[in-house]
């Protein structure tokens, strides 16, 4: 497949919650030559799990991924998420050192940043803090980029979850 016009697409995949089904889905996507940007999965109802995958692909390849995914016996439904009409969130924990340990930084600046980004301080000790932020990938990326790198100890991110909105009333 030609690697032109690659853009990020999000696909929501409903599967039977069987052992190995996540690896079947991921293996298929990677073996067909697509880069996985993000993945999240959780049991959603009864015997089913929803996997949300963001991949870089062109339109035609995206269609091909969907068809290939349907060939996995345990895949029930594949729904592309419309980039113009979706709700998308990611959650991240950022573990930082107490800023007073480093010259020219202060915890107050960090707390203001958390506030601006609608984040939370979910753990606070004399050694350091854990911040929680949610939102789009871009928002989380910019939050992280504003924290001095030397203070960051560890980052954990969920990968995106996304869903199509209800169709709007006026069309």
């Amino acid at each position, binding site marked *: 497949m030609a690697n032109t016009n690659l853009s990020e697409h999000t696909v929501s995949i409903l599967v039977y919650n069987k052992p190995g089904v996540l690896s079947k889905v991921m293996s298929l996507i990677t073996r067909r030559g697509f880069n996985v940007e993000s993945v999240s999965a959780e049991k959603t109802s009864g015997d089913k799990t929803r996997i949300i995958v963001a991949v870089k692909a062109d339109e035609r390849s995206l269609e*091909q991924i969907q068809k290939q995914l349907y060939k996995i*016996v345990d895949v029930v439904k594949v729904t592309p998420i419309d980039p113009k009409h979706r709700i998308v969130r990611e959650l991240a924990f950022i573990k930082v050192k107490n800023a007073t340990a480093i010259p020219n930084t202060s915890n107050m600046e960090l707390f203001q940043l958390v506030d601006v980004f609608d984040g939370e301080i979910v753990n606070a000790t004399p050694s350091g803090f854990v911040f929680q932020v949610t939102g789009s990938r871009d928002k989380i990326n910019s939050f992280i980029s504003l924290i001095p790198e030397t203070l960051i100890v560890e980052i954990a991110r969920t990968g995106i979850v996304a869903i199509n909105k209800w169709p709007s009333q006026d069309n």
Partner: protein
Amino acid sequence: MAMKGARIVVECLKKEKVDTLFCYPGGVVIPIFDELFQHGDGIRMVQPRHEQGGTHAADGYARVTGRPGVVLVTSGPGATNTVTGIATAYIDSIPMVVITGQVPTQYVGTDAFQEADITGISLPITKENILVTDIEDLAPSLKRAFHIAVSGRPGPVLVDIPKDVLLASTAFEYPEEFSLESYRPVSKGHPRQVAKALEMMSQAERPLILAGGGIQISGSTELANTFIDKTGIPFVHTLMGHGINPRNRDLPSGNIGMHGTVYGNWAVQNCDLLIALGTRFSDRILGDTVSFAPRAKIIHVDVDPAEIGKNVEVDVPIVGDLRHVLEKWIEADRPMPDFSPWVKAIREKRLANPLTYTQKEDIVPQYVMEKAREAFPENLIVVTDVGQNQMWAHQYFDTNRPRSFVSSGGLGTMGFGVPAGIGAKLGCPEREVLVIAGDGGFQMTMQELITIRREKLPVKIMVLDNGYLGMVRQWQDLFHDKRYSGVLLDNNPNFAELARVLGIRGRQVTRVDEVAEAMTELAQSKEAMLLHVIVKEEENVFPMVAAGASLNDTRTS
């Protein structure tokens, strides 16, 4: 009554009417072999010399019968030895059920003796695979495996059963039906698309049917013949698409692609409507994608939605069972225009570009093919290995019956021929089976000659020995200035003598004047026989389209 898992496996095979089981024992599957010994009545156990051979044999059995080939092997190396056979079946859409033993559940993941993660390994080469961790899931898993293997686009399914599951007991109940929300193969083509396709045919001037392997897989050969006769549309076929045989002999047919006929490739490049039936447009058929069938609109019928639009852009996609689509087209009884100028043009191309070869002193393989075709009955099953031998067989045995040309098309698996021939003979014992192999591929699985002897199968084998890996040598000849790197097979034994040592009739042929008579002996032998033919070292397969080149550049020398 409670039944052990091992017995349940045997009872499931009986429920599925499995008459032939390609099996090789080992530690963890001893319980199944024990049950087969006591309760395996009606199941012929065929033991290959190597699990790969058993898997190809199951594949050959499936290709000629349409029923799933069934394999039973042990864990670890037993399971990994089936991988090439599974991959071969997968890419050619062959139904197969591979049952592998696994180490006991409590040892899974501990690097136990003869442990291999075969469900992980086989993931990209199976239609479905299942690790059975609970005895209650055993019978339903086997039902699932058989159902999925044969339905929709067929393919291999692997069922991995840990030893403790084989030893556990439960009441045996085989599910009558299999139903799963997420598995519903499409059967009927969309009526509007089916009608639209027919409309386009009726307006075409130069339509052409491209017949793929899907026709014989779906059991539509007779329907395709009828449709071709009814409409007068000429056809070409792929390697997997042998077997079409309309009554109207005036209609030109021919294979296309890398080693396709000149007129076949010409017809593709000049048609204005290409009706592709059950083909996945492999790169061996397309050549250069951009210049493929440049003047044509394309109708593509396939049961697998993922094949449509994968390699070529299609104007009328029809997802559905070919049988249904062809039935609808025939029923519609739509009058077609007179395609005879187009048919005549193809026929003239054919007359001007016949397959040719020069037979001088050294025996050339094409001559051997012609003599074989003359000596064997018409309802022959040809089983090929891979390489030049395969392409010559493809060109010279334009088989006119479905399921009669058995060849590893997609994977191109050397070593496929002899074991697949075993499976073909077991599947169709009343028909003559001729294996055509080169000296390279033959040596990859020649231990299966012992299986032929043991099972007393009158399989006929022809080894074309040019002392080279001929197809690679041909590429080196044409594209690498004859730097014959790694292709010389200069220590080949006398394969006829080797066959005799293994208890099989063998004959070696070195002179042209012996070929016809030796071929008659091969064809008329009541027992298995191997004919070792020493052929010209450097003969190339033509026509040929270089990899990725346009079908317009079909070279004949």
